[in-house]
């Protein structure tokens, strides 16, 4: 039964990772990556690595999505500005 739990979290991680690759729009990818961070944290907890789960949460749930979204925003803002001046 414990194997069941591990298998479920592993499949969650695999599915989310695949979805993160398949989401071609960076905003949507950032959302999937945030979920991937949580899924990885669950997997690490199940595999008895709470230390790693904590750092994955710290990085994956807020920091990385924030960095990605800020980059998207900057790139888009540039696009809009350029669109206005042209």
């Amino acid at each position, binding site marked *: 039964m414990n194997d069941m739990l591990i298998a479920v979290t592993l499949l969650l991680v695999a599915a989310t990772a695949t979805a993160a*690759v398949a989401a071609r729009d960076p905003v949507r990818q950032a959302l999937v990556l945030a979920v991937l961070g949580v899924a990885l944290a669950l*997997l690490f907890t199940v595999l008895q690595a709470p230390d790693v789960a904590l750092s994955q949460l710290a990085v994956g749930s807020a920091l990385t999505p924030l960095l990605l979204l800020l980059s998207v925003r900057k*790139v888009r803002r540039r696009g809009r500005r350029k669109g206005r001046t042209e």
Partner: protein
Amino acid sequence: MMSVLPYLVAVWIFLAGCYGLATSRNLIHAVGCLAVCQAATYVLLIAVGYRDGATAPVHSDIEPGSRPLVDPVVQALALTDVVVGATVTALLLALILQISKRHGTVDPDELSELRG
């Protein structure tokens, strides 16, 4: 099946990330795929250190020696790896911001300054 599933998942994630990286049409998306590739290394590391029926090697709430423990070394390595991943992501995103300013695009198909 269960004895190789975690390893196969790690391999799958790595190859999927590589596929995304190679076919990406947006550099920010490519960096996300690189992060996926790196997730494969975490999964592999932690899977290698796991032991059936064991618990975390943290003795704040259990007596030493009372329960079998998983491998602490891979966890320390994975911690280092997580930090490395986050910093590389940040640095590459910084470069992408500058690319978007200087080239006006983040589509790798449209970057044609360096060739031949």
